[in-house]
């Protein structure tokens, strides 16, 4: 059997030739993992397993709203273990990338996608539906808000779902996708809506279901929640004093960027009341921070695509970008699009979002 090769990461290349063997070994050792949690993610059952309860807890924090009682034939099993387990296979991980961006590489004809960031190596075996996360000293702080973003993008792609750079809030079953570049007001809008009683499904990364071909082609778009965290500039934190206690630096090198956990401190019943796993997409809103009164202004589909797609293109990778662009183009033709002018009055912002969703149901 030809061993998988690890392309594009020279200092890790030789050791990771045994990636498949490392997966098998890790899963064999984990058969009796003491700690297990189950998620319902994008309509699929996902199992988390680890022998380290603390590690599992820090990883699962961003998925708290998706926790399920038990897994039924999990579509994905994620094993969290120590990098020390890889000693025999990967003697040296190589230097931590200077960039905050992860290094993502493909091996064995694309079957394995591996991810290297700040001392953590993680891999997805697409054929087997398995992820292994070999952690250094705990789960990297920069990854806690949106764990394994790139690997989930790959896994979702195989389910014909697309990770998009957008937030999502809902009123009843009707969801408003919040798109646009960083700093446009997605997080502020999403958190303002949550405070006002709308359902919160995320502020930055959503799995979009909009099949372009096959049996599902023509179905209406849906959005699936992934992470119940939120990202916010430190300067905006004072607008959400109720969340100050949940804030952590996203990256020690960038103290101005915070990750928040809006579900911290809520009991399970409360969590079920403020979040959901999915929502039918009834509108696309492109926030824009202004000083005036909040209002949603209808936007031509092409203009909406111009605001939504560019920042999502990078988020799509390693998903194929041309396919992703095609899907976003279909989205803007499928739902009404609005420019959302976000003013200072956050309650009024939420009211305007709810107004759009309510009128869309009529």
């Amino acid at each position: 059997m030809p061993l998988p090769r690890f392309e594009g990461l020279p200092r890790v290349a030789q050791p990771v030739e045994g990636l498949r063997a490392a997966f098998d070994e890790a899963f064999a050792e984990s058969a009796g993992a003491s700690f297990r949690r189950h998620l319902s993610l994008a309509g699929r059952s996902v199992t988390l397993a680890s022998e380290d309860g603390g590690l599992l807890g820090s990883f699962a924090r961003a998925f708290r709203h998706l926790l399920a009682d038990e897994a039924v034939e999990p579509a994905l099993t994620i094993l969290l273990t120590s990098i020390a387990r890889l000693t025999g296979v990967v003697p040296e991980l190589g230097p931590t990338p200077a960039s905050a961006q992860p290094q993502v590489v493909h091996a064995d004809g694309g079957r394995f996608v591996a991810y290297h960031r700040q001392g953590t190596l993680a891999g997805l075996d697409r054929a087997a539906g398995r992820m292994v996360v070999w952690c250094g000293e705990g789960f990297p702080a920069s990854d806690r808000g949106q764990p394994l973003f790139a690997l989930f993008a790959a896994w979702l792609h195989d389910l014909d779902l697309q990770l998009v750079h957008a937030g999502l809030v809902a009123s009843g079953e009707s969801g408003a996708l919040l798109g646009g570049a960083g700093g446009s007001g997605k997080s502020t809008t999403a958190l303002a809506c949550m405070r006002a009683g709308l359902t919160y499904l995320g502020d930055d990364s959503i799995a979009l279901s909009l099949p372009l071909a096959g049996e599902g082609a023509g179905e209406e778009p849906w959005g699936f929640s992934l992470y119940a965290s939120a990202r916010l500039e430190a300067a905006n934190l004072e607008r959400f004093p109720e969340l100050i206690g949940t804030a952590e630096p996203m990256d020690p090198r960038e103290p101005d960027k915070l990750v928040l956990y809006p579900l911290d401190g809520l009991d399970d019943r409360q969590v079920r009341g403020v979040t959901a796993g999915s929502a039918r997409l009834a509108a696309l809103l492109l926030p824009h921070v202004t000083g005036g009164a909040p209002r949603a202004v209808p936007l031509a589909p092409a203009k909406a695509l111009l605001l939504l797609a560019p920042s999502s293109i990078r988020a799509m990778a390693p998903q194929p970008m041309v396919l992703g662009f095609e899907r976003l183009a279909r989205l803007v033709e499928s739902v009404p699009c609005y420019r959302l002018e976000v003013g200072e009055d956050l309650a009024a912002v939420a009211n305007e979002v709810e107004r759009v969703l309510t009128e869309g149901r009529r």
Partner: protein
Amino acid sequence: MGEGRRWIPAADVAAKVVDGEAVLIHLASGAYYSLEGVGGRIWELIDAGATSRQIVEVIAGEYGAAAERVEADLDVLIQQLGEEQLVTETSGHAVAELPESTRPSSEGLGYQPPQLNVFRDMADLFALDPPLPELKDEWRNRDETQS
């Protein structure tokens, strides 16, 4: 402009015409573009494989403009698209059937020279942190009994 000149969207370009407006993204650089009105229609025709003569005939016919003016404006637009590496010239013959326009019926048909709108705000980000390498699917096609 000869009858046989044709162009195709460059390999690194994703493009879509929505309600008559073309939105283009250069996937390598992160720059993105729009072409409204006449420009969006020209992109539709380029994407369909039309020759320069066909494009001039269609635009002049649909917008009631003089062919000489359309031809001159097309030359300028093609030069811009080439400089931005959005199209590459290719050979080939005129296509038999051209697509109907997707512009909304509410849009006026007054001729305005095509204008390429350029947005480079994402380009710096792409230069600092290029997109991650895309998924490969070769493993799906191989005979697993061989592995």
